[in-house]
């Protein structure tokens, strides 16, 4: 039995930690997308949804307590639909779609909401509390390396130089800026209204405001100007704004500006903040249904997942994950890279992206045509679903058939999914 993707939405992606979603919780952000998803299929009785599967790479703090279940409660406004959280780091949002498809194909469900969310603002990379196994840490410290170090290791082993990384990063920004300008990144974006409570001036301001102080007025013999105890910024104000455009792309960047940045993960290294993906906030979800449900809804499907493959690679060069995952997915589908019309390769780092492109000889004409994570951001657990939603809209716009979403994954893994437009 086939499984069909019948709807897909995402938020615009905000920059972390000081971007447009810095005050927005992951559960709120995800619930908004889920609401929009349901609203887009008015014939569907939401209580017939079997599960909500949420990808998240840092399921703790605001994202803890099984955020999947919270999102189903908040987004669907019913207690009858369960929810689960899935963590395969940066592939989580794709993994959940594959899981939904697999469940439906095996008859275990008829309708599943799948996707991912990640709000990296206000959360340290890797989470708050790191308690590695000391014995393993001594034997295999690289199993615990930060991603930046692995990007340096890939750059070294696959001989990707700094100039090429910076040029790749610049191209990502240029493509993204053009895409936003042309409206190619607009479709499928749920506008999010952000409400922020704040003080209208920094605490401590007003200390030198002569009109505030009666004693000053007495000293100078002038009127106090209606001394107002709240003047100087102690009352809570609220402002609202709507976010509907990706925040990351920079029109003003250049090779010169990128070349000036210092390596951030290793002394004498080549990986900089400019040629790495941005830390981001975002959410994206799709609705997957069985053939039976599709018919009963009398709706035309968007796409189907042809195949999904994951692979393990050495953790110290985790960035090469797609080199092993892509052939797996292609083999399952009985296809080659030549069959692909578009590829979304998650740009965790320019170094690993270039290693993957060169190793698999990927046609860059069809790769990340609207820019990638270096420009648009990488909200870890959300990215797989977000890239899928982007892929569907771009394939549709181009009236093309096959596309791939692929990424490297922390701790030495890769994932790749092939979609067919219907």
């Amino acid at each position, binding site marked *: 039995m086939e499984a069909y993707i019948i709807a897909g939405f995402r938020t615009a992606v905000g920059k972390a930690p000081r971007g447009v979603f810095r005050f927005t919780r992951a559960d709120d952000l995800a619930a908004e997308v889920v609401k929009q998803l349901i609203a887009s299929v008015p014939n569907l009785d939401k209580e017939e949804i079997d599960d909500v599967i949420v990808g998240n790479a840092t399921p703790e703090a605001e994202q803890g307590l099984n955020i999947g279940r919270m999102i189903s409660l908040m987004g669907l406004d019913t207690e009858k639909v369960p929810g689960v959280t899935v963590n395969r780091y940066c592939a989580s949002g794709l993994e959940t779609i594959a899981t939904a498809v697999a469940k439906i194909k095996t008859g275990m469900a008829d309708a599943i909401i799948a996707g991912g969310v990640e709000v990296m603002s206000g959360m340290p990379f890797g989470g708050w509390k790191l*308690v590695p*196994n000391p014995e393993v*840490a001594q034997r295999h*410290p690289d199993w615990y*390396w930060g991603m930046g170090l692995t990007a340096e290791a890939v750059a070294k082993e696959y001989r990707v130089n700094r100039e090429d990384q910076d040029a790749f990063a610049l191209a990502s920004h240029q493509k993204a800026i053009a895409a936003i300008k042309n409206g190619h990144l607009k479709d499928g974006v749920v506008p999010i209204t952000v409400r922020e409570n704040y003080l209208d001036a920094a605490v401590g301001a007003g*200390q*030198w405001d*002569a009109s505030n102080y009666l004693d000053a007025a007495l000293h100078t013999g002038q009127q106090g100007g209606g001394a107002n105890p709240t003047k100087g910024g102690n009352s809570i104000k609220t402002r609202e704004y709507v976010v509907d455009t990706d925040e990351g792309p920079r029109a003003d960047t250049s090779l010169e500006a990128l070349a000036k940045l210092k390596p951030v993960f290793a002394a004498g290294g080549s990986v900089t903040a400019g040629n790495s993906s941005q830390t981001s906030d975002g959410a994206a979800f799709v609705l997957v249904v069985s053939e039976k449900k599709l018919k009963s809804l009398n709706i035309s499907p968007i796409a189907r997942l042809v195949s999904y493959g994951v692979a393990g690679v050495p953790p110290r060069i985790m960035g090469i994950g797609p080199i092993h995952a892509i052939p797996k997915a292609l083999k399952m589908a009985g296809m080659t890279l030549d069959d692909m019309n578009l590829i979304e390769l998650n740009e965790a780092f320019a170094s690993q992206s270039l290693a993957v492109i060169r190793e698999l000889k990927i046609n860059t004409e069809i790769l990340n045509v609207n820019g990638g994570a270096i420009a648009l951001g990488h909200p870890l657990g959300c990215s797989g679903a977000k890239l899928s939603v982007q892929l569907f809209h771009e394939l549709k716009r181009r009236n093309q058939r096959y596309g791939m979403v692929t990424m490297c994954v922390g701790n030495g893994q890769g994932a790749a999914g092939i979609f067919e437009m219907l």
Partner: protein
Amino acid sequence: MVNRRIKLTQGSGEHGPGRRIKKVAVLGSGVMGSRIACHFANIGVQVLLLDMVPRELLPAEQARGLTLDSSTVRNRLVNQSLETAIRTNPSPVFSKHTASLIQTGNFDDDMAAIALADWVIEVVVERLDIKKQLLDRVEQYRTEGTLITSNTSGIPIHLMAAGRSADFQAHFCGTHFFNPPRYLHLLEIIPTPETKTEVVDFLMHYGDKFLGKTTVLCKDTPAFIGNRIGVYSMLALTHLVEQLELTVEDVDKFTGPAMGHPKSATFRTADVVGLDTLVNVAKGLSENAPDDEAKEIFNLPSYIRQMVERQWLGEKAKQGFYKKIKDDKGNSEILALDLGTLEYRKQEKVTAATLEATKPIDDIRKRMKVYEQGTDKAGALFRAMHYPLFEYVSRRVPEITDEFFRIDDAMRAGFGWELGPFEIWDALGVRETVEKIRAEERRIPGHSGEVADWVRQMLDSGHESFYQVKDGVRHYYDAQSKSYKPIPGAESFIILNDLRGQRTVWKNEGLTVIDLGEGILNAEFHTKMNTIGSDVIQGLHQAIDIAEKDFRGLVIGNDGANFSAGANIGLIFMMAVEQDYDGLNNAIKTFQDTSMRLRYSAIPVVAAPFNLALGGGCEFSMHADFIQLHAETYMGLVEFGVGVIPGGGGTKEFALRASDEFKEGQIVQQVLRERFLTIGQAKVSTSAAEAFELGYLQAGKYAVSMNRNRLLADAKAKAVELAEAGYTQPAPRADITVLGKQGLGIVYVGANSMRAGNYISEHDQKISEKLGWVMCGGNLSTPTQVSEQYLLDLEREAFLSLCGERKTLERIQHMLTKGKPLRN
């Protein structure tokens, strides 16, 4: 870290109950203004810093659509100045949080706010007309009774006060901060005849106790005291150079530390300050001090005039008396100027028998005597410089001050002289020197050979010296009463040198125990750099023994250049090389036991660190019951630099403090991490405030003395207070939570990642892992409560094992021979 405010030892209200400084307005944000603002913020005062509104928009401002009405533009000058100041190295602020106390504004929009200030400080450009205009506006807005001071290095104060209201004049006074105000100790206070006594007293006291300066009361005479004497002394040298056939190197060698002057001596200092500054002060003096008998000296010798013409002004012009060049291989070399040909040439090595003879003499007074008797060029220069200087300063009383000791104060605090001119004169013998002044060849303009009458009268009345110490208090000769009087405020200083004669209780080669009175002992280190070796350790135990028996408290403090540079690593190196691990183990154990004894004794122990308090000096301080420290204390556990971990209880203490900071439900690994990194990165505080932020100080267990001269007295007062409050010996701790394996994993991951990122060497990684092992209490399966001794044993074991590493020995050797850490 919550408590960011610096804690000052509270004043006793000596300056009257009425005047308190909560807010200060600083007008003018130039080099001096911005830094004065920073220094007030340093002591916790709210500052309003104002400057001019710019007349034109910058292209960047235009591009952003700003106008001359935008506050960003209107406050641009002041904000830029403040930012530049804060970025200056060394920093004018105690901590990165300090600047939040400074609010900026401009003269056009924010002058009304000065009505809220307790003190308005004018620091605009050194032009009388501009200063007067601004003071007109100050008068318009200021609240009656508030202080108003003008900071200047040379504009006559009375000219600024003239014609203003009585209240203004009564509260108006001149000040002269020396640049940089945070670091230079001299603050000249220049009242006018109309300035109220209460205001003068207040400024003298506040500047001393709260701003930490040596306040020097000056008369309103050209260049006041410091620059008058300083520039005279400098220019006298420039006149002597040709007559005594001296080179630039000769002068700097002869007039440096050997003479009790700073290392930069004479010409090096001139290069740093800038020749133009010097020339300006000289010019001002030659115009404004027409009656100065030495005024010819202010006419510069031709080589200086030519240097100014060629713009060879010193460091800012990249050349002055010295010039740094780079050869083809990129090696840099500093050339010296030949004053005859005005060409730069290679420096020549200067040797002089007199300097060799003075070298072994630590006591500066005795050294001066030996220096004076030198028969070579150095000795000749000493005499040619000092005899006319003595005559000149004697004749400046009462012209520039009524009390000669203020001249000494100014030269010590403002120019870094170890002794002021009258103190040197005392050291040489006043009476015999008077004859030598007369006999000395006349080389310098104004040198007549005759000292001022008051000096002769002093000798005639049987007073043989300018100063005397009576009962540990310094007295000065008062010409009016022809008797010795205590130096005002001196009773609140403790100077160990003045006490050691009568009050020494015990001593060995490395440490002297002195009775400070009121039942308090002081343990004074006096080794090279005040490093800690067996003598110091034995001395500390002895001091505690004596104090526990017959006294009620102990201060650990000294009057050296540094509190302590740390353990004597030479000894450790020798034992490690000889693989005398039993000996080493015992030595470290003794070190640890000493730290523990400082905390666990029957009497309160107050450490009084200042300047460098590194390694063992930091560890001992941390184990005291209380730390009374100078605001300028550079404290840190720097053992990584020599390839070991803190082994005198420092690692244990940081694990203990981390444990005390753990709270239920908290991510304790983060707390431990911060402590771990402080040791792992060998972080040294740049101020007392930062020492708190780095965790070397603990809330409620320290206080800051702004004035270095008050440190020992403040520490003693603290010891008395603790004793009187009923000090009891603390109980040993056995409730220290260590994380065991729950912390160890992140230690290994962190150390490996830093290594993989090339930020640290393999040896650093090894030391880091050892440090982590100790701080986690080893590989316990679960967080566990342990005793201090358990941690000390781990600490000692780790220290010992590192001493067996070749790379650690290389680090120690490098530090011993080169004086800086080796990264291997």
